[in-house]
């Protein structure tokens, strides 16, 4: 890392490919951390609060933790991307809700089908589930946008 000119609350650093990769990984693991790795600490803190706040609101309002279904592969696939964008927090949420890191809807003949689909439907029946889903998926999509922002900053396309 070569530090050049500190300015306006952040460090102006040259970004090596290794640091870029580290920022991308950190940014996916912990929303905002990628910006911190690149020296944008205040922005990182704001993004962390926004993304994790939205994620927390989503969970608190019974947002949909999507399950992949081959019958609706396109839509459920997109939903999974929105959920998974937020990083490992999604795995932790699934373990809390489904009792395991569940990402697909099993075959109806499987023993795990009934408890999983019932938990899924129970959350869907909640009066605030639609709000929760909006918060939850927005959190994941915001974090994916942050990864693109990290890339742009590393490539010096953005400040």
């Amino acid at each position, binding site marked *: 890392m070569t530090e050049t000119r500190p300015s306006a609350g952040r460090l102006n650093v040259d970004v090596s490919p290794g640091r870029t990769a580290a920022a991308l990984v950190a940014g996916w693991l912990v929303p905002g951390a990628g910006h911190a790795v690149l020296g944008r600490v205040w*922005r990182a803190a*704001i*993004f962390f609060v*926004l*993304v994790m*706040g*939205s994620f927390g*609101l989503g969970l608190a*309002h019974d947002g949909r933790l999507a399950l992949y279904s081959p019958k609706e592969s396109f839509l459920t696939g997109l939903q999974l991307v929105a959920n998974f964008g937020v990083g490992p927090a999604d795995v932790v949420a699934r373990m809390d809700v489904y009792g395991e890191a569940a990402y697909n809807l099993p075959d109806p003949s499987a023993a795990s089908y009934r408890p999983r689909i019932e938990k899924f439907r129970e959350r869907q029946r909640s*009066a*605030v589930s639609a*709000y929760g889903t*909006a*918060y939850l998926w*927005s959190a994941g999509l*915001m974090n994916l*946008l*942050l990864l693109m*922002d990290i890339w742009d900053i590393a490539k010096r396309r953005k*400040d």
Partner: protein
Amino acid sequence: MRSHVAHLVLYSGIIATFFAVLTRRDRREQLRFLGLVWLGMAGGVLLLAYLMLPFPR
């Protein structure tokens, strides 16, 4: 929280703040952009709701 309006205000606030910080660098510009996006989202929804008044379910 079950209030539609509270969710409208909160969700618009989160999204507006996110895009203001993401796309603008100057603090003043960020606040201006945040206000515009928030007003666009919250105001747009209220306007749409008003226009839908003559068409109840």
